[in-house]
Structure formats: C-alpha cells, structure tokens
C-alpha cells in the first residue's frame, strides 16, 4: 500500500518509539528505526526517545563498518525527510554512562527525567525496543 492511498485514513494519533538497547549486538535499534521510518512515511506524528543503553545509539564517533555491521545509524540523519523531528534523549542515562551530549545527529533534545517522561506521556501509542 502506498503512502498516497493511506492518506485519507490517517488519524491524529501520536506515536513514540522508545529505544532502550545499545545499537550493535541486537537488531532492536535497527528494527525500531525501520518502524519509525514507516510511521513517518505514512504521515503519522512520530517521536523517537532514547533511554538507558538506548543512548549509545545516538553518541558520535561510532564506526559500525569496522566490525562488519551495516551502519544503520547513518540513516538517523535522514529522519527529517520522514518528518520525524522530535528526538529526545534522557539526561540521566547520559550522566550514568559518563557520556557527553556529543551526538551524530542534529536537533536532539536532551531532557531531564521528569521532562522526558512528560513528553513520553503525551503520546497515544508507545512502542519500546
């Protein structure tokens, strides 16, 4: 089914895709992104959240190809073409891991626990990977 056919049926639900796993050892991050891109191409209001080890997906200077893994992290830079503009990272998760706010994508919003949670609560449907 093409996006064009679907347009008439869209609702105003908001979707949150929550990432909790590090990028390479499991398929979770890649499969979460695949889902996010589809929601985006069907014009569903979609936000991405990174918490726990999920924050390892957004930090800079990673090199997946060095360990023969397809670098799906590069696809994050294309999110704007899928109208996914809300990308939230949990400050506490960064702090716990001694990480700086140095990301491989722009327009990431780092939020303290409560604000992060408030944003998450505003979504109608939440998928966690």
């Amino acid at each position, binding site marked *: 089914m*093409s*996006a*064009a056919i679907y347009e008439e049926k869209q609702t105003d639900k908001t979707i949150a895709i929550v990432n909790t796993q590090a990028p390479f050892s499991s398929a979770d991050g890649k499969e979460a992104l*695949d889902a996010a*891109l*589809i929601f*985006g*191409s069907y*014009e569903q209001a979609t936000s991405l959240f990174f918490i726990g080890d999920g924050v390892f997906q957004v930090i800079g200077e990673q090199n997946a190809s060095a360990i023969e893994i*397809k*670098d*799906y992290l*590069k*696809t994050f*830079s*294309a999110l704007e*073409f*899928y*109208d996914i503009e809300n990308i939230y990272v949990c400050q506490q998760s960064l702090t716990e891991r001694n990480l700086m706010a140095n990301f491989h994508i722009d327009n990431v919003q780092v939020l303290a626990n409560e604000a992060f949670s408030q944003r998450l609560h505003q979504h109608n449907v939440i998928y966690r990977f």
Partner: protein
Amino acid sequence: MTINYNNETLATDKQGYLLDFTLWNEDVAVLLAQTDEIELSEAHWEVIRFVREFYLTYNTSPAIRALTKAMKAEFGEEKASSRYLYRLFKEGPAKQATKYAGLPKPARCI
C-alpha cells in the same frame, strides 16, 4: 543471476538487483535498465543519481514520500510529486530507481 559488462560478470539477485553496489557505474545502469527494456532519459537519470546519492549518504534507499520530500529540496515542487516519479518508474520509483542505481532491493515491507 548475472549481467555482463566489459567482459566481466556482475552478480545480481533474482529480481536483477546488483549484489555489490560498489561495482556500479552509469554504463551498468544502462544495462540494468535494458533488462527491463527501458531506455533511460535525462529525467530518469536525475532520479537515479539522486537515489544513489541518498543511499551513499544515509545508508538506506528512500521510501517514496521521503524521496519526494528530499527531491523537493533539490529540484523544486514540480518534480517532487509521487505522480511525476511513478510516470518515470512505472513499477514504483523506490523499487525501480533503486535497481538502476545499483542499490540493494528495498526491504519488501518498506
């Protein structure tokens, strides 16, 4: 499956997509299109080059909506409609332009 280019054999998958996207060049694109009996016009080339550049930058082929949105930024409104793209690539621009651009077949559900 394979295609022959310059006395060399290039491997493709069952649907004719190049297995190794690094072996692509514009002559290979012409051969890939020939297997579908399509002659590439300048309008086709614009999209093929654009899709390949998108893949090299983002490590993924764009879904149709993302393709139109990205093309709008590059070529303006007139070429940024799915109707324009479907007229050029009747089997679906995401699938067909990707093929001639030497890129892997997009996942079936995308």
